[in-house]
């Protein structure tokens, strides 16, 4: 159950990233704040900050001394004394701080290098083709539910070596972690205590210990840190991280890109006619519709850009807002699929740069390539039926389209 929250009346002093207005269209909110209150504060969630200029978002991302990554999802439940403390955190390395962070990250990086990810491209392309085959006889279908969401889900399930039929289990977990942030602290703690997610992961870990495979799960179980195998909590936390961070995010990017193309015939025809432009176009779509907002906790009292931050305050680290800053990107509000200069921050900045960025980029490119090859012309069947996710990962969850 989600607690009903009061609607936001003033974005500079009372913002809430789960408010229906933010969910529907956050960009005008950020534009206004950039002009009036570029580091906004809200008392919600026990105190939360929101920088919206690129330079301020970058400054926070680079400052691991004053901002800890111990929890990266804003909710009513802050990390408690029983949770793994920094620098490790619950889901290393995303919840880790230096110096542990670099070690935990270095373990994972080789599994996500461009060359390793390129090996997954044929599987991804075939998967996209099969998903499009499945709807080939219909003129109308849901591009988010029947196409976008399956792609990162099935790819990460394959990488981890989990049963493909567990897709529904994953979807439920993701919703619990990322979207149900409106729950009270008690409701959220009850879900954590319930332990279903841990039980599921423990079962998969046990299977892989008995029967090692050539997959990411066995890779993690074999990995060593300072000559020791990783603690079970570390392995499980990282698997949960990969599952959650690898699915909702890319699903959102693919969905938002298709939503854009459905409404912009010039762009989609150009992509169908100029396949070489796709690599540049996906970077622009990632800039304009960056799905992921991270969070930090203020590590100690200090002053940031004239605001007095206190230890334990949340900070929403909005890379999507940074990507729309007209002070950094000319015509920031316009999607220009051939944008030549594009230092977008969709995958973050600094030491926590998204470890799956090469994977996400490959999935997005292949998903759009296969789509425009098959359907260069399509439109929204009913624009009012498009729904957007709540929380820190923004993307369309339903996109009814009509093939033209």
């Amino acid at each position, binding site marked *: 159950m989600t607690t009903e929250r009061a609607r936001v009346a003033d974005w500079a002093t009372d913002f809430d990233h789960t408010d229906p207005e933010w969910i529907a269209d956050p960009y005008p909110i950020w534009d206004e704040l950039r002009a009036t209150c570029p580091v906004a504060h809200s008392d919600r969630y026990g105190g939360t900050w929101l920088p919206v200029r690129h330079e301020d978002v970058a400054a926070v991302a680079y400052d691991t001394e004053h901002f800890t990554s111990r929890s990266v999802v804003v909710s009513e439940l802050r990390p408690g004394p029983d949770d793994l403390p920094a620098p490790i955190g619950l889901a290393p390395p995303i919840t880790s701080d230096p110096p542990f962070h670099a070690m935990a990250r270095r373990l994972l*990086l080789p599994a*996500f290098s461009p060359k390793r990810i390129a090996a997954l491209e044929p599987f991804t392309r075939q998967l996209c083709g099969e998903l499009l085959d499945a709807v080939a006889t219909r003129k109308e279908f849901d591009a988010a539910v029947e196409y976008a969401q399956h792609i990162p889900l099935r790819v990460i399930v394959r990488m981890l070596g989990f049963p493909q039929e567990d897709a529904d289990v994953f979807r439920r977990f993701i919703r619990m972690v990322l979207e149900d942030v409106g729950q009270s602290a008690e409701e959220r703690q009850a879900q954590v205590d319930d332990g279903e997610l841990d039980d599921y992961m423990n079962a998969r870990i046990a299977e892989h210990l008995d029967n090692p495979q050539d997959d990411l799960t066995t890779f993690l179980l074999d990995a060593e840190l300072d000559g020791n195998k990783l603690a079970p909590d570390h392995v499980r936390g990282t698997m949960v991280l990969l599952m959650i961070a690898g699915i909702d995010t890319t699903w959102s990017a693919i969905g938002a890109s298709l939503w854009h193309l459905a409404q912009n015939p010039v762009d989609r025809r150009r992509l169908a006619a100029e396949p070489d432009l796709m*690599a540049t176009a996906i*970077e622009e779509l990632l800039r304009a519709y960056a799905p992921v907002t991270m969070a930090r906790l203020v590590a100690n009292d200090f002053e940031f850009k004239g605001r007095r931050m206190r230890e334990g305050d949340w900070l929403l680290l909005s890379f999507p807002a940074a990507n729309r800053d007209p002070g950094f990107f000319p015509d920031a509000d316009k999607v220009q699929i051939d944008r030549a200069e594009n230092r977008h*921050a969709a995958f973050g900045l600094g030491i926590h*740069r998204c470890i799956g*960025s090469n994977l996400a980029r490959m999935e997005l490119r292949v998903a759009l390539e296969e789509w425009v090859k098959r359907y260069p012309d399509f439109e929204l069947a009913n624009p009012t039926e498009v729904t957007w996710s709540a929380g820190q990962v923004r993307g369309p969850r339903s996109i009814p389209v009509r093939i033209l």
Partner: protein
Amino acid sequence: MRVHVDREKCQGHNRCYALAPELFDVDDLGNAFELNDGLVSEGLEDKARRAVANCPEYAISISE
């Protein structure tokens, strides 16, 4: 013209490698480095500038 990757600033976004694989490669950890001591052969100058202009970390520089 030469390109140079600042290994301290590079966070492995791999944008340079995607844009100009003739000029950059990445190691197993995703960190970029310049090929051929950074020497930009004729005809690749635009690609070098594109790589600079798309690095989110400002890790790439050009010297003439």
